[in-house]
């Protein structure tokens, strides 16, 4: 418990680091601003007593000393200002200007600090997410991660830039107004201060209750929202079963419950505010009445009374705020931990002596095994050689481990046993980005990023021309399609753009891979959504453009694999058959069986 709190504080400190100076500046500006505002009642008090009234000027030492140092004759001031009231009003205006400038600076500094903080947090999170191993991503849900990157980041931001800063501001205001009050009349100041703990205690207790009610209300409102959501997504079911009435009843029941809870909350809130008004109102009244009595007794001047009442007004508001801020601060701790979960997870890291050996030569899998959890074996002792410049075909069913094998080569996962070498060098010793940059991989379900088609295809080669892009697209049989789009290669694709068909996406991914010109190419079932004729056309074009690259093709279609230099059949993480199309077709086994099943399709294709 203690440990986690300590690390939370540390984490927070790490996050705030870049924006600390803004917050410190903001607090300093606030202090100056408050101070210059607090002098105004003093000026008014002196005006009332000595300029308008006849009392000899009594000046507090913190004002008197600096003025005397400047050579001002304090005793002559009332007479001077009495003839020139405008000059006094200029003093007030000057103080106002001073406070205005610092208020502006304080607000701006707070906001700059807050924006810097949030930007730093987001940037750190994004970079971290890119670097975290894929296995980590597998274990975390997208929705939850996004919540952490958005809502929790906002919570942390509010905690620092609103609540923490508020506490400082409130404490400054309180300290200043209290000390001014004590300098005017200590007895009356004690009365004013006595109310402070009462107000804080009362508002904190009330807040806790309000929080509880609010939580209940919020939870049920979430349920109401979910009912509406389900009704909309399930509209076909509702209509087809004629259950509109049930739906309305369900919604209405929750709607009523929410209303009830909301009204219960409102009742408490109204009471809370009213009682707060009452307590601080009574305190103000007490100060007015007692102050009047003190003044009548001659214990303080009229001007001091007016100033005291002003200071009291500056005290009650921040005190009431404090209760709110304290209760809100308690929520931020969870958010800090949630953000911390992402930031403190272990990222992909190469050994410091990682090499950048040339990626050439045969690819060898030597006794490679892999398991996520140590129990279920996904890859089971695979031994395989892919000679340089040759084409390997892998045939396998769902869950046979063929994709995982490729992800091991790509260093997305690391083998639990055995090693993978390229040209005799273990890839585990090489830099991850180095290996990946030399393997062009088209995933089973390719992902396109929001942006134009051209940007997507040339994503690894920013300086590529449209002609380069088109050349790659032509090989992937995509160019003709794109010419049909109204905006051609400027068509926006991805989540916020036009939805491409599965086949178009796959072909875009192939074009994107071709732009990389890598010595090793992996096509993981990358033509599954393309019809058979186009599949054949793309394969022919690819064969011409591969050059001397080493190619691994994964598919469940025999036609895609049959021309490979070598074919392996995978099942349950193991290689069960190995050979060429000719040898495997002769052998008894799964390859021949599937060949037979797909014969009809092959015939149709060749027609």
């Amino acid at each position: 418990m203690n440990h986690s709190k300590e690390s939370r504080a540390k984490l927070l400190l790490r996050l705030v680091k870049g924006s600390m100076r803004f917050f410190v500046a903001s607090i300093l500006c606030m202090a100056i601003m408050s101070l210059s505002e607090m002098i105004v009642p003093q000026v008014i008090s002196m005006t009332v007593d000595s300029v308008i009234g006849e009392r000899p000027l009594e000046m507090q030492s913190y004002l008197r000393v600096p003025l005397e140092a400047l050579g001002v004759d304090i005793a002559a001031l009332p007479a001077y200002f009495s003839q020139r009231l405008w000059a006094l009003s200029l003093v007030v205006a000057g103080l106002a200007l001073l406070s205005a400038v610092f208020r502006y600076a304080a607000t701006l500094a707070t906001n700059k600090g807050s924006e810097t903080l949030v930007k730093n947090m987001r940037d750190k999170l994004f970079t971290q997410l890119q670097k975290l191993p894929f296995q980590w991503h597998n274990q975390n849900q997208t929705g939850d991660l996004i919540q952490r990157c958005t809502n929790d980041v906002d919570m942390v931001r509010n905690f620092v830039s609103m609540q923490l800063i508020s506490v400082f501001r409130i404490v400054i205001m309180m300290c200043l107004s209290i000390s001014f009050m004590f300098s005017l009349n200590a007895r009356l100041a004690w009365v004013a201060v006595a109310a402070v703990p009462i107000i804080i205690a009362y508002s904190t207790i009330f807040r806790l209750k309000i929080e509880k009610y609010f939580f209940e209300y919020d939870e049920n409102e979430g349920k109401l929202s979910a009912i509406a959501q389900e009704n909309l997504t399930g509209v076909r079911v509702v209509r087809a079963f004629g259950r509109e009435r049930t739906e309305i009843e369900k919604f209405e029941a929750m709607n009523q419950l929410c209303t009830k809870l909301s009204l219960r909350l409102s009742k408490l809130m109204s009471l809370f505010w009213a009682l707060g008004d009452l307590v601080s109102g009574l305190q103000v009244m007490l100060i007015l009445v007692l102050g009047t009595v003190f003044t009548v007794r001659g214990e303080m001047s009229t001007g001091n009374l007016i100033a005291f009442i002003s200071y009291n007004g500056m005290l009650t508001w921040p005190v009431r705020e404090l209760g709110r801020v304290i209760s809100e601060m308690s929520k931020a701790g969870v958010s800090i931990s949630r953000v911390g979960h992402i930031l403190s997870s272990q990222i992909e890291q190469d050994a410091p002596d990682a090499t950048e050996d040339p990626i050439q030569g045969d690819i060898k899998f030597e006794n490679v095994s892999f398991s996520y959890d140590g129990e279920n074996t996904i890859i089971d002792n695979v031994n395989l050689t892919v000679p340089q410049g040759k084409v390997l075909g892998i045939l396998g069913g769902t869950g046979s481990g063929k994709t995982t094998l490729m992800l091991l080569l790509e260093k997305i996962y690391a083998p639990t046993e055995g090693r993978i070498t390229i040209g005799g060098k273990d890839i585990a010793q090489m830099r991850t980005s180095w290996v990946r940059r030399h393997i062009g991989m088209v995933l089973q379900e390719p992902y396109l990023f929001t942006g134009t088609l051209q940007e997507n295809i040339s994503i690894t080669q920013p300086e590529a021309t449209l002609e380069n892009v088109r050349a790659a697209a032509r090989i992937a049989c995509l160019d003709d399609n794109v010419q049909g789009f109204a905006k051609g290669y400027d068509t926006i694709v991805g989540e916020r753009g036009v939805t491409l068909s599965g086949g178009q996406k796959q072909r875009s991914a192939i074009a994107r891979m071709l732009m990389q010109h890598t010595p090793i190419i992996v096509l993981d079932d990358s033509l599954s959504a393309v019809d058979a004729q186009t599949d054949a056309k793309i394969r022919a074009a690819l064969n011409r453009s591969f050059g001397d690259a080493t190619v691994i093709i994964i598919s469940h279609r025999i036609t895609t694999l049959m021309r490979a230099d070598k074919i392996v059949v995978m099942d349950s993480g193991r290689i069960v058959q190995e050979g060429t199309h000719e040898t495997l077709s002769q052998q008894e086994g799964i390859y021949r069986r599937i060949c037979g099943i797909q014969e009809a399709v092959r015939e149709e294709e060749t027609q």
Partner: protein
Amino acid sequence: MNEQQNNTIHHLKWFGLPRLMPYLRPYLWIFVSMIILGLLTGLVDIVMPLFQQYAINHFVAENTYNGIWIFAIAYALVLAAQVIMSCISCYQASYVETCVARDMRRQGFHHLQTLSFSYFNQNSVGYIHARIMSDTSRIGGTVTWDLMDGLWNMSYLVGAIFVMLRINWKLALCVIVIVPIVALASAYFQGKLVKLDRRIRETNSQITGKFNEGITGVKTTKTLVIEEKMDAAFRDTTNHMKQISVHAAHFRALFQTVISFAAYLAISIVLWRGGIITKEGLMLVGTLSVFLNYAQGMMNPVQWVVRAMSDMITVQVNIERFTALMDTESNVVDRPEVIEKYGDTFNPKVENWEPMTGDVEFRDISFQYPDGEEMVIEHFNLTVPAGNTVAIVGQTGAGKSTLVNLLCRFYEPTAGQVLIDGKDIRERSQLWLHSNLGYVLQTPHLFSGTVLENLRYGNPNATMEQIEAACRLVSADKVIARMDGGYNAQVGEGGDMLSTGEKQLISFARAVLADPRLFVLDEATSSIDTVTEQLIQDATQKLMEGRTTFVVAHRLSTIRSADVILVVNGGKIIERGSHEELMARKGHYYSLYTRQYAEENTRAAWQGA
């Protein structure tokens, strides 16, 4: 996407309040009393400083504290009155806010249940959801709190000006000149900030979008080694965000500064002019102090009035969107004489309902989607005798659900008729049709709640025996027995706590309980484990027995057993006939079938291996 088209600020008459009248009317008296109490509270706020004036002018100046008890009691009474009034008006405001939002939500939801499918196809779930959830609560909050805030501050402002004018009109005028300047400045800043806030929100959603991409596309990013590029692009967006936010902060800071400076400016003017007047003996010191009070206190209300007005203007968008939903009318409605006889969705006259046999006929049907450009079906004729099965096949996105949509009367044909038992379906109520219809979706949809509640969706009056029998029939019983809590197990939102296969079996049982004459099945394409797959195939066969069935089919067994197969491509029906006929034709169906056959058998071969 929808955010974009709503960027223009709309101006409705009277801030759109007349359009909200139906929702406000039930609470009119509370609403009025809330406004009156709010105004009164504002006026009492004016009175409070006068106590200070009296104390200084009377007790201090005359050097007596005679009657200070009465003074204190009077003060306490006024304070109590103020507290009580503000407490009541606050509660009333929340009451009206909550109730208006509740009523709007209720009627909005009710209205949605009557809208036709074209509405749901044209608007995303998120968009519709926001109309009945967030718009309603925003409208409720604005018409109460902003209105009250505005009026309360307005009354304080008017009251303060009035009192100041009474005390010394010349001095008052010196202060009042500042008010319009502050008002104009507020309006300027508020307008700027509303615009900037919108840009900030847009950028913010871009950032969320990038996070989403960064997370879901992480595998691709890694394989392409474009982490740094992605990082740079992300930083561009966050930089942009920081820029606008700081820009907005400038305005916000300037705004606050101007308001507070204006307040102190007012003080300095009063101190100067008022000081002279007081020195001349024309005004008492207490009066001067209270004047200072008002002068300083009236600048913030100006800002609040402006902010309330700005909120009232921006909420127009929400009002307009909500009323647009309420104004949308269903384009599939039962005719008055049909409702007369069969009742409507909410008050069915079940006693007049004829039993359904299940003969279906599409007679000379032509159809075009309301937002489509061309006819997808033209002069289509098909007779399906009761108990027969029609399979609709074609590639994803080929438009296979069109016929089903017409049969379910989710849409009405542009020309021609759909007849059931020889009668146009428009001659009977939608509820009659839907009560005789069973529908199993490709992606089965369950509602949060227990398994039992979901099963009862098919038939609310089913006995436990009937439910168990239905589950046994489609082999859902074993699945349910495995669940923690059995029939009382929670299925989670949208049934998320169950696997697709489990959801499917439960939705089959739900359809069996409805015991429909017409059965519509949209087969799943996603692969499920072999055992469940077999269970589902058996369940499908059992469900089709003795019922007129339309299947959007993917499984060869289902397709082969159909009486008629319709092949759809590009939204149109291009081939029809029995399996043998279509195979012999060696057309579109033939190639579709051979590929499907190869894929299904390849899968089976792996599982056998």
